[in-house]
């Protein structure tokens, strides 16, 4: 069995065990919570109830007759008005006789509770009834009953359960990523090094040592191996002194290292960069569910732009800075090496996030977001290049799919956890935490990535000539403008900008917003491999792009049929599925239809330019959505993006149909 197979199985086994343990813990925790939430909810009205009961006690101490008090009903009405959580209030005397009341429901089982000697809280029918004794100078005078909607208890339980499930999903995704890294670092990399060492020895090369910083069996094995190598080399040195020139002759075909040197074998693995990349995407996505809301705190009409546009602007500028940073980041990454490029990128992101957390105005917020975007871009490119260069060419597509899976896993986990954190810690502390995680990613890379220059071909810098050449190519233009850009407009305009604002406006908590946004990433992760397989088998990439486009348009209209949080959740899920279907075949389509142009500028450059133009959609998304919200409200924005997607998808389909008819000799898809 290959180590890779073993690794995969181990990772799955460990994750399954973790999932089972976490699930068991969740179920065990949920039960006591269900019993704890009743008193917890009752406590929320206890303060109010206490003040009423104190007042009644005071009246008694002033020798006012308990059953003839004035203005009690009015007082109870006022209390109920000031505390909408309380559905009814009732004062009964020692014998359970009703004296004063406000908002009493007609419910037989409740009446029985009121007439009996009730204590504490109990759920009766649709109500949670809390009984408080009213004490007088001569002992108990009576009882105050406070009623709450029991549905609120259920709603709270449901909310908590959702949070638990969210945490569970994120924990599993995180565990998978971490396991892959641990496996790679502890098993795959040392065994690969060992194999390489032995291969060298077989060819007579005794000059290499194995890494010595491992524990356990591998550590001991490496130590013995290194001791052996060392003694062999020492003997070789001794022999060289003794034999002089004859030494070289006798040992031809064998290699030893020079005295004082200690060359060590190091095996890098794709999975080494996955974990810190996951960590960084996770950290930056923490703010995804509340970022537009955070921006709202900085808005003043003094900026002279409408609120909706101003709220979208930081996202647009982030996307712009990210897009602009990418080509530079690629060159930087080549020059600095992965380790330094990733660490510097993560470092810049850390500083950016830290400053975002302490922003004072919209202007400096935008500035710090741009800085974050530059770091983010550098990390993105570095991780992408690292994975591309560490996977054999025949598995490049799979490598890229894995890169995207890690990206979306990090993104959805971050969005979901960020919502929960923002609910409990607030916006600024969550940004601080983001910065901490991003710093952790930087430190990780410094510790685990080799200090080695990459051997890959140094990429070309971007030139206007190449861009013009590609844009003059009609299929390329059609794919980028009519398929790629609208997808990104929907992503940033709808998912990153409009959805969090609308969900919040519908009265959802931050946790709920993060949770709902998670649906997009989940859909991508779940459907992408499936779609990739089907697309490769069927080969009709253009149909996938068309179907994806129409599905995205349909997603935007989901709200029309199902309004409210569920509708938005459905729209997000559908958009995820639509993008899983329609987005990745876009690049394949370019390879299919733009062969000559791609050949002229080079595959890597063509992809780079495609990505750069595509990211324009990221920039446009929030601006378009903001303008639509300002004029037509939230739903108008959904429909507007939907119409835009529908129109571009239709033209795209027609254009390709026309291209196809005119270009009959072009085979459908790849052979």
């Amino acid at each position: 069995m290959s180590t890779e197979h073993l690794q995969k199985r181990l990772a799955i086994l460990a994750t399954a065990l973790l999932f089972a343990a976490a699930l068991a813990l969740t179920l065990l925790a949920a039960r006591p919570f269900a019993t704890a939430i009743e008193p917890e909810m009752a406590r929320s009205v206890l303060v109010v109830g206490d003040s009423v009961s104190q007042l009644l006690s005071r009246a008694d101490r002033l020798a006012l007759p308990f059953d003839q008090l004035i203005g009690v009903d009015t007082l109870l009405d006022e209390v109920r008005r000031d505390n909408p959580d309380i559905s009814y209030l009732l004062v009964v005397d020692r014998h359970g006789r009703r004296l004063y009341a406000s908002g009493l429901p007609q419910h037989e089982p409740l009446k029985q509770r009121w007439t009996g000697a009730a204590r504490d809280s109990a759920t009766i029918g649709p109500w949670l009834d809390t009984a408080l004794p009213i004490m007088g100078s001569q002992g108990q005078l009576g009882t105050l009953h406070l009623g709450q909607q029991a549905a609120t208890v259920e709603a709270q339980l449901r909310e908590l359960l959702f949070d638990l499930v969210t945490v569970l999903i994120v924990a599993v995704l995180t565990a998978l990523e971490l396991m892959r890294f641990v496996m790679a670092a502890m098993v795959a990399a040392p065994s690969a090094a060992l194999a390489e060492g032995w291969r060298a020895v077989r060819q007579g090369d005794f000059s290499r040592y194995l890494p010595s910083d491992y524990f356990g069996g591998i550590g001991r094995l490496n130590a013995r191996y290194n001791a052996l190598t060392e003694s062999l080399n020492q003997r070789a040195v001794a022999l060289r002194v003794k034999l002089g020139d004859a030494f070289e002759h006798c040992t031809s075909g064998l290699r030893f290292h020079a005295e004082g040197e200690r060359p060590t074998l190091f095996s890098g693995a794709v999975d080494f960069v996955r974990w810190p990349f996951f960590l960084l995407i996770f950290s930056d996505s923490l703010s995804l569910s509340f970022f537009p809301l955070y921006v709202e705190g900085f808005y003043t009409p003094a900026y002279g732009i409408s609120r909706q546009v101003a709220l979208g602007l930081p996202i647009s500028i982030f996307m712009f800075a990210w897009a602009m940073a990418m080509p530079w980041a690629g060159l930087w990454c080549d020059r600095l090496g992965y380790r330094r490029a990733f660490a510097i990128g993560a470092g810049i992101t850390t500083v950016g996030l830290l400053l975002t957390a302490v922003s004072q105005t919209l202007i400096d917020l935008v500035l710090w977001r741009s800085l974050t975007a530059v770091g983010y871009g550098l990390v993105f490119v570095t991780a992408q290049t690292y994975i591309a260069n560490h996977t054999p060419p025949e598995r490049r597509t799979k490598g890229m799919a894995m890169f995207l899976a890690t990206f979306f896993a990090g993104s959805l986990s971050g969005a979901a956890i960020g919502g929960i954190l923002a609910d409990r810690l607030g916006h600024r502390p969550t940004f601080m935490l983001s910065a901490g995680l991003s710093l952790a990613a930087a430190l990780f890379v410094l510790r685990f990535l080799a200090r080695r220059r990459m051997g890959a071909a140094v990429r070309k810098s971007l030139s206007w000539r190449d861009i013009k050449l590609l844009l003059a190519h009609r299929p390329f233009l059609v794919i980028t403008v009519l398929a790629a850009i609208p997808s990104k407009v929907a992503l940033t305009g709808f998912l990153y900008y409009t959805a969090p604002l609308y969900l919040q406006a519908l009265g959802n908590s931050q946790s709920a917003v993060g949770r709902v946004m998670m649906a997009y990433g989940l859909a991508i992760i779940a459907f992408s491999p499936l779609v990739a397989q089907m697309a490769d088998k069927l080969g009709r990439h253009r149909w996938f792009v068309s179907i994806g486009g129409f599905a995205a348009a349909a997603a935007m209209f989901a709200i029309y049929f199902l309004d409210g949080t569920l509708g938005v959740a459905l729209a997000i899920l559908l958009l995820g599925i639509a993008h899983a279907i329609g987005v990745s075949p876009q690049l394949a389509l370019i390879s299919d239809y733009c062969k000559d142009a791609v050949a002229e500028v080079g595959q890597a450059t063509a992809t780079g330019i495609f990505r750069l133009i595509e990211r324009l959609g990221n920039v446009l998304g929030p601006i378009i959505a903001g303008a639509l919200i300002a004029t037509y409200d939230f739903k108008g924005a959904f429909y507007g993006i939907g119409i835009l997607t529908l129109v571009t998808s239709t033209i795209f389909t027609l254009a390709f149909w026309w291209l196809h008819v005119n270009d009959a000799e072009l085979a459908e898809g790849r052979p």
Partner: protein
Amino acid sequence: MKRRILLQAGLSLGLAPLLPALAADRRHKVMLLLYRGVTEAERGFMDYLQRQQPVDFIIRDAGSDKAKLPAMVAEAKALRPDLIYTFGTTVTAETVGSFAQRDPSRHIADIPVVFNIVADPVGAGLAPDTRSSLRNLTGVSHLAPPEAQWQAMLRFGTAKRIAIVYSQNEKNSVLASARLTKLAQQAGATVKVEGIKTDADGKPTVQGLASTLTELLTDKPDWLYLPSDSFLIAHAAAAVTQAQVAGVPVFAATEEPVRQGGALAGLVSPYYAAGQFAGYKAEQILSGKRKASELPLDTLARFTYLVNIQSARQLRRYPPLALLRYAEIVGAAPT
């Protein structure tokens, strides 16, 4: 909003900026012209002033006799104190004259005067408005505005038929009665308002009070209202007892009828707090920071809702439960 003014009397004196007094070495002479002896108001005034700077007080009391007032003012003119404190509308009007009619030979103009316990200084003609007297006069009104008093009365319960009694020779009392009458009538209540029967000199008498009250109480109104009135305050116990025997609760604009007289309720400024506020104004004038004409004529910002619980039990007119949150209960057995 209403509740705020009704809340426990807190002193608005908290805003007093305690700037270091420009130490005038000599001791100031402050003369107090009083109508019915030293009350809590004067204690508050003197306590406050003494804490701020060395000061000697000269106290003159009319003993509820209006006739003694001209002599007291003449003495003040001769003694020339640094500041004069006057108690009540009657004494103040006698000391400084009204804004429209003042006689420099009789009234004091060149010595700063700080009045206290004046129900309605503008209504009494002491000043054109409350921002400034436009002369060497400032002071503190102790009364809650009539609107607040009317609301307070409504808050206790029914107020459909109101009876009001006042001394015809006390300007503030006449004014206050008229203003409350207007408010109650606007709210749809019927109001019976009577001046206390007087003797030949036009002064109210104890017998006159009893017979006027008998007339007012015959058809058992919801409330008997006692305005801020020196005669009524002096005879509060008698008036309250007569009303309560007739089963009519009493609402008072001042403290004493509730605390000592047993009236059921009242919305009042504590005299002591009003005195402290007057002391604060006097201190600003004496230390040379401000002239009297630069200081506004103020009322306290907060009032105390007093409820006499003994009377409540006796009359079976229990205060609404919400009132127990903020009312000061008097007459309760110590617990």
